[in-house]
């Protein structure tokens, strides 16, 4: 019922946006075709406004830097960047994808940024043969849809599982571990990978309810306490993670909690409280933006006036892959798609090569550990692969 209502309201908002959006883009079309002979475009697809916009803005700024540099080097045949603001909503994604598809000058897309919108827009891009490289949609199922146009410039969620397991084993050196998950595809998937890697070190496990359906975890806390463990792994999202951490700490359990990027949200620290959250390890199939190679950080700051954020570097790399194709004369959608498929090269965040389904070659996936220190999430270390 709630969802329906939200959909109706969302629909109305969407109509308004589409109406507004077309007005804007027709304006920019004119200037682009007037100013440049080639008129090739690439688009960024992600949230630029709304509650989930922080990540999208990080990424769009990375793409902007790539395009800006390209245009300086190729002043006679520029590429225009078209930002497509999805607000992170899967409901808006299909219309927006259609808009990109209808603009035949758009040769490739960086995005969609989130998994939900990727799922909604993916079939359309696939049908139109418009290549997409997502810098941040990490749901593993996206690569299993049979979309020819889907490429992922980061590791998927499951790559974090072994990373988290390795961290628990090699860095925390925990001998007894308790594993909890929220029964979601993401949470249970991660937990299973961790259990597989740690084997007999996992002395107990339990499943809770996600989506805010459970707030009282006394039974889990009792079990964790009885198991007397060195570390607790949680597969799931920040909402439950914060409550579990708080209730564990209140019961006197000091073993650190290790969790995936689903917990990497300020609300985790709010709901656990800074004292209980201290020392929590969060994994991410990404690297801190400060680790990017070369002069990326300085150039990014000079153009955008801010420090690069999470996934700014992968978005920059994804854009550069598309631009390298255009530079090589692949100025049709078909040509560019083939180019990306066969691409192999260095970026600032990683070395790129795509394998089956458009996944990044697993050998190239980096998983980093971040740590909650003083109520803030700070980079800890890159997790060794074994």
């Amino acid at each position, binding site marked *: 019922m709630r969802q329906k209502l939200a959909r109706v309201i969302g629909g109305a908002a969407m109509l308004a946006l589409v109406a507004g959006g077309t007005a804007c883009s027709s304006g920019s079309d004119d200037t682009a075709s007037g100013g440049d002979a080639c008129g090739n475009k690439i688009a960024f697809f992600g949230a630029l406004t709304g509650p989930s916009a922080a990540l999208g803005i990080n990424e769009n700024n990375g793409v902007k830097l790539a395009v800006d540099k390209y245009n300086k080097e190729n002043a006679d045949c520029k590429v225009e960047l078209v930002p497509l603001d999805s607000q992170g909503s899967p409901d808006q994604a299909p219309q927006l994808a259609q808009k990109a598809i209808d603009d035949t000058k758009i040769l490739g897309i960086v995005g969609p940024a989130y998994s939900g919108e990727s799922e909604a827009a993916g079939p359309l891009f696939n049908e139109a043969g418009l290549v997409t490289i997502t810098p941040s949609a990490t749901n593993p199922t996206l690569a299993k849809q049979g979309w020819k146009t889907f490429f992922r410039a980061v590791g998927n969620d499951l790559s974090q599982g072994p990373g988290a397991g390795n961290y628990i084993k090699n860095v925390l050196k925990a001998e007894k571990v308790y594993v909890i998950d929220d029964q979601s595809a993401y949470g249970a998937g991660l937990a299973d990978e961790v259990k597989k890697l740690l084997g007999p070190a996992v002395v107990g496990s339990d499943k*809770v309810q996600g989506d805010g359906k459970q*707030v*009282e975890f006394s039974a889990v806390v009792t079990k964790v306490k009885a198991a007397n463990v060195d570390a607790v792994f949680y597969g799931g999202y920040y909402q439950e993670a914060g409550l579990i951490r708080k209730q564990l700490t209140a019961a006197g359990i000091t073993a650190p909690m290790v969790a995936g990027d689903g917990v990497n949200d300020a*609300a985790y620290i*709010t*709901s656990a*409280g800074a004292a209980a959250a201290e020392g929590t390890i969060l994994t991410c199939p990404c690297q801190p933006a400060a680790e990017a190679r070369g002069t990326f950080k300085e150039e990014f700051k000079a153009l955008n006036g801010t420090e690069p954020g999470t996934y700014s570097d992968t978005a920059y790399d994804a854009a550069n892959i598309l631009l390298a194709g255009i530079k090589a004369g692949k100025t049709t959608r078909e040509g560019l798609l083939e180019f990306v498929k066969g691409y192999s090269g260095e970026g600032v965040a990683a070395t790129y090569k795509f394998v089956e389904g458009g996944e990044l070659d697993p050998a190239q996936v980096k998983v980093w550990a971040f740590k909650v220190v003083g109520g803030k999430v700070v980079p800890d270390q890159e997790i060794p692969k074994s």
Partner: protein
Amino acid sequence: MNFDGLFSNFGELTTTGLTQGAIYALVALGYTLVYGVLKLINFAHSEVFIAGAFFAIWTWNWFGLDQNSQVSGAGSIIFYLLVAMVVAAIASATTATVIERVAYRPLRKRNAPPLAFLITAIGASIAIAEAFGIWTRRRPEGAPILVGQEPLFRIFGVPIDAVQLLTIGAALVMMIALDMFINRSRVGRGIRAVAQDANTAALMGVNKDRIIMIVFIAGGSMAGVAGLLYDVRIQTLTYSVGFLLGLKAFTAAVLGGIGNLRGALVGGLLLGVVENYASGLFGTQWKDFAAFALLVVLLMFRPTGLLGESLGRARA
């Protein structure tokens, strides 16, 4: 099945289950009272609870306390608890009264069918929950740690902490007070009279609307106290937690016998421990399954709940 896990942790699962059960019971009172008098399931009661829980946290925020504050000193802890309790009870009672005035009374005046009440109740519940969601930007809000959860003493090796004592103690005191209010006081007699036969009660000079208002205020205050206890125990509040907690409390009320105050207590405590035993025995994912399976099975054998419906039954 993990019998070992259940038996080795039996004591702790029981105490934490009873604590959660006490909160269910306090919320269940609101359902039971309104049902006893109006034969109406006030589904918006979960949001009456949420209002109290939010206002308790906002009261502490107003004093400059947030989720990272540590309060020490018995005097100031009791002060903060009492102030928040009063504010929460007032907020919840006000919410309950507003719901009754806006959503139910006009329907009653027009002799609306029961279905209309049900839908209005659900509508009011969603509207209020969404309003809190928008107001809090759908983010969790943290409560300060007022009462420590370090074990104070042990009974047969089972640690007992201050939060458990406070929650169960407060619930019992509120219950007994309410029970005495209904059974001993003049207003309580009015409530029982309206529950038995509203028209005859009116002929005897009982003001029905006033009695109904008092019922909503009493149920609301209990929910407000439950909200405060929830904050003290869980320490984090999201706008959407009322729905399931309300459903559980309603289940507790039905388990004990809806319309029966003591039944609400028995049902709440029973539900709390059964959830925990199931979590220990089968794993936490079975918690809600066990709770609702218990309800279905119990109603098969005792359709009016454990203690039966009694508020409306003739008594002295």
